[in-house]
């Protein structure tokens, strides 16, 4: 039975942290070792990247629309009519730096992280991971490395795609629906928004990708107890990776400079 005393919980937390840290360390150690599993890497790039496009499109479009709506309302109500043209840079900043990386991260942790945990968890309980080992395939190199690499490379692509969709949705709401001056809106966006805003989101998304893959693989590898165990692993993957994304987002935001322009 689990030890529910404060010491027991603390010890359990450190044990879990050690376990996921050890998996991360072994993954990094195996990152450049041969044989490389190119086929699985390609499959994972497709699974994480291409197959996530519909959900990212919807999330980014509605995220952009609602952010555009609230920004328009804010400027219109508190600063006055005409000031809505400044919504462009605010939307770009908010979406590219914070909202899209977080939304995409949460969506991918739900769609991809849980599926990694379920797939690897099922392999664990049906002895397929032991079979990999017995047939000369290092399970870390075969299962974890390609998934981590694919998530690392695909998350920024998805976030960049989401940024474009979201910013266009914000433009659509303000300029097309609410009649904000198109030229000034675009001019303000180009004048105040920075490439660094987008780059910050991309840096975050690489970290989120690694977190999602490592947590999903870790939970899969630790699965015990049949179908119930697989269910538990998928739920825990979504919860742990979502919380980690939200916490890490704050710290990365604080760590990275707000702007690369002087002052």
């Amino acid at each position, binding site marked *: 039975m689990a030890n529910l005393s404060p010491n027991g919980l603390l010890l359990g937390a450190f044990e879990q942290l050690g376990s996921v840290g050890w998996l991360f360390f072994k993954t990094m150690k195996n990152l450049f070792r041969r*044989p490389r599993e190119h086929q699985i890497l390609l499959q994972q790039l497709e699974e994480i990247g291409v197959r996530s496009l519909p959900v990212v499109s919807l999330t980014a479009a509605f995220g952009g629309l609602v952010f555009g709506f609230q920004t328009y309302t804010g400027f219109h109500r508190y600063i006055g009519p005409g000031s809505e043209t400044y919504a462009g840079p605010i939307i770009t900043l908010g979406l590219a730096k914070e909202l899209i990386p977080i939304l995409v991260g949460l969506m991918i942790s739900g769609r991809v992280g849980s599926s990694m945990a379920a797939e690897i968890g*099922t*392999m664990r309980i*049906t*002895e*397929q991971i*032991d*079979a*990999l*080992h*017995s*047939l*000369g*395939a*290092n399970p870390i190199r075969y299962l974890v490395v390609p998934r981590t690499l694919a998530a690392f490379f695909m998350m920024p692509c998805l976030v960049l795609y989401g940024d474009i969709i979201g910013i266009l949705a914000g433009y659509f709401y303000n300029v097309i629906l609410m009649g904000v001056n198109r030229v000034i809106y675009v001019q303000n966006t180009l004048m105040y928004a920075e490439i660094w805003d987008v780059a910050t989101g991309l840096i975050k998304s690489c970290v989120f990708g690694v977190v999602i893959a490592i947590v999903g693989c870790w939970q899969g590898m630790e699965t015990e107890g049949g179908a119930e165990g697989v269910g538990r692993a998928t739920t825990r993957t979504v919860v742990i990776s979502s919380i980690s994304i939200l916490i890490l987002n704050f710290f990365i935001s604080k760590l990275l400079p707000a702007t690369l322009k002087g002052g």
Partner: protein
Amino acid sequence: MIRIIDLHKSFGPKKVLRGVNLTVKRGETMVVIGQSGSGKSVLIKHLIGLLKPDSGEIYVEDVEITHLRDDELMRITKKFGLLFQGAALFDSMTVAENVRFGLERYTRLSEEEMQKRVAESLGLVGLSEAECLMPFELSGGMKKRVGLARAIAYRPEIMLYDEPSTGIDPIRADAINDLINKLKCDMGITSVVITHDMVSSYKIADRIAMLYDGEIIEVGTPGEIRSSENAIIQQFIHGQADGPIKDW
């Protein structure tokens, strides 16, 4: 060829192996019998490095394997073929892909040779027509036979069989026994077979070891085991509910 010395393994408070000692000679078939849950599968998983013991040593051809690093261990596992209790087929791959998995990693065969070896291995287990099927399309017994074809495809020196006859009808089980004997005679494969099927044990074993309460309590030829005076062995081989074994 394999020496197990004072092997201990616990899972939490449960002590599964309490000092197992066993030697398997080159070319022999050693059958390990014991009750369900007695630690037979745990023992076999130590031999291939899937589990690390709490203490004790395992020598495979004079190499102590319990302290090897992953890459060093891989060189040793190449000598082993393992038939899993539940077959453990990769469910995202076809039967042929499953069988060639080990070939791709352990051998340097050409594509043509690999295809030939896959067909040959599946032929040995009577599943020549199943190459393109997915594991979900197979019955339990067929999965087991594909698992066996996969394990023998790269011609390992040592075969480990975890309950080879479980889930297979008696005729197929006998065919598997014949195959185990054939592999021993034709290729000199050393085998460790985990089972509680006494009919199979007598047919394939050169020696039988009984695992009870985490220890090997007796090792002998099938004849010696049959005539053993140990009441535990007699109860087990005759499948009697009454006797010194109570924890069933």
